């Protein structure tokens, strides 16, 4: 043994140590006894996602149905639905809903286009950033609502003023998120794109814009919410149609059922936006394999 030890360093690591013999080791089942066996009943995603709103509806129904709250303060789902049915039949609701949707649609379309264009310009060109980014960050902190008097002076109280207000408000979230996402695009991919002959436009189209899509979608989701917020504001200050107008009118007649119908409608429209963005994510980001939660 002593003679061999001089030149066999290799077996030093192989020598059974004292601790390895006799002392019981603590062991455990790494799955903690909770195995995932072949077939398991999984509740579909949309059912789970719907559970929250359904629960909320049930709570609302219970609170009003058992007269926990006075019906003049909070009407039940039944009478709200009746009010909606009645106003849909009279053509009042479709007209106001259509007006509101078109205001949001136009405002959002213009805001997204402007925000996206500005983000690409200042995200891609350093000169663009120097000229644009600081101004955008200053303007971002100004509450858009504070611009209303100015907008009224400029454009009056017609449709353009409302669309302008929504467009202004929605451009900023799009800009901020898309700009950050463009700057987050892996420089190595940009370098590779250049090495393989992509010009400026090619880089924007093939590398920068696709890479910035995740951030853009976050901005879009945000903008959707801002758009409805500003719509309510615009319609309640000065309007003769739209859901906001409907709610203001209802207030003067003490019709809580119509007011709550307006709130529910806004909620449903917010949900619609969420669904739209989710569909966009599904198609535009199908290449991603991110963490989806446990």
């Amino acid at each position, binding site marked *: 043994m002593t003679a*061999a030890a001089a*030149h*066999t*360093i*290799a*077996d*030093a*690591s*192989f020598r059974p140590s004292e601790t390895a013999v006799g002392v019981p080791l603590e062991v455990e089942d790494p799955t903690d006894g909770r195995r995932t066996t072949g077939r398991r009943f999984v509740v579909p995603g949309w059912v789970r996602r719907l559970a929250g709103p359904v629960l909320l509806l049930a709570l609302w129904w219970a609170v009003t149905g058992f007269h926990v709250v006075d019906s003049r303060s909070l009407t039940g789902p039944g009478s709200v639905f009746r009010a909606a049915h009645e106003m849909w039949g009279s053509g009042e609701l479709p007209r106001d809903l259509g007006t509101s949707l078109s205001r949001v649609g136009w405002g959002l379309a213009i805001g997204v286009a402007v925000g996206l264009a500005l983000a690409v310009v200042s995200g891609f060109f350093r000169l663009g950033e120097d000229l644009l980014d600081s101004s955008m960050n200053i303007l971002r902190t100004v509450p858009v609502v504070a611009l209303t008097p100015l907008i009224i002076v400029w454009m009056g109280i017609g449709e353009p003023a409302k669309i302008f207000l929504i467009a202004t408000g929605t451009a900023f979230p799009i800009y901020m998120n898309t700009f950050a996402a463009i700057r987050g695009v892996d420089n*190595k*991919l940009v*370098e*590779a*794109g*250049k*090495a*393989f*002959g*992509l010009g400026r436009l*090619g880089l924007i189209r*093939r*590398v920068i814009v*696709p*890479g910035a*899509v995740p951030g853009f979608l976050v901005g879009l989701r945000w903008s959707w919410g801002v758009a409805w917020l500003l719509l309510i504001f615009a319609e309640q200050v000065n309007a003769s149609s739209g859901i906001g107008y409907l709610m203001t009118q209802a207030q003067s007649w003490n019709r809580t059922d119509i007011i709550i119908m307006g709130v529910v409608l806004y909620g449903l429209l917010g949900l619609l936006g969420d669904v739209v963005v989710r569909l966009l994510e599904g198609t535009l980001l199908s*290449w*991603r*394999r991110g963490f989806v939660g446990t």
Partner: protein
Amino acid sequence: MTARTAPREAHSAPTTSPEHGVAVRTSALRRVFGERAVLDGVDLTVHSGEFVVLLGASGSGKSTLLKILSGFDRRVEGDISVAKRRAVVFQEPRLLPWARVLANVTVGLRDKDARARGITALAEVGLAGRERSRPLTLSGGEAQRVALARALVREPDLVMLDEPFGALDALTRVKMHGLLRELCERHRPAVLLVTHDVDEAILLADRVLVLSGGRFHLDQPVDLPSPRSRTGIEFGRLRTRLLHELGVNEELTRYEPPGATDTTTGTPPAR
């Protein structure tokens, strides 16, 4: 800094004119980072069809040299002329994750037959039928083969590879060496491959250059018959020579830690 600019005058011969059969020529190349000259007087000539391996320890400036030759680094002194039709293979595949494999191969190509050539190139690297795959579904070796196809499809006169197999496992690396050698013999571009792997250098190169202290210290032709293998006296002799040039003494490293990576030297445990 001012003292070193003078020699440039001596090398101001017209290097922009096309030189027959020369894919890369640099002279008195110098690149300074802060106070330190990472490249200091690099003279390099690579002929067309030649496979040159740049060997150097990490931080020796070999990647910097490739960056300069690909045009990414312009803060450089000295004369450079590089083949116009050139392609790069990076250490990471650098595929656009949102584009499918074929679109990644043909990225930046505007010719009409780009698609057909891309499909051919993919078949050449053994990825026929994977045109519509997403990059994130590929293994490391497959992704790097796509990167090879992306370089190949441009029919380059010069291919530069920056430690292209460094991130691959040992088994995949062996296969990739064979593939690269085969592709280069078929298309005969000039090749400039950067690595720190001495074995890789000997297996692939027509000529090995060792970069240290900012310039080439050894220009070693490799005259081994192909197919090459790691066994043989000549291989071992070259290996020792190159390692020595890199400042590594093989004899010492051999017995250092138990369970070292070099399996050929392991002595069986005494019974």
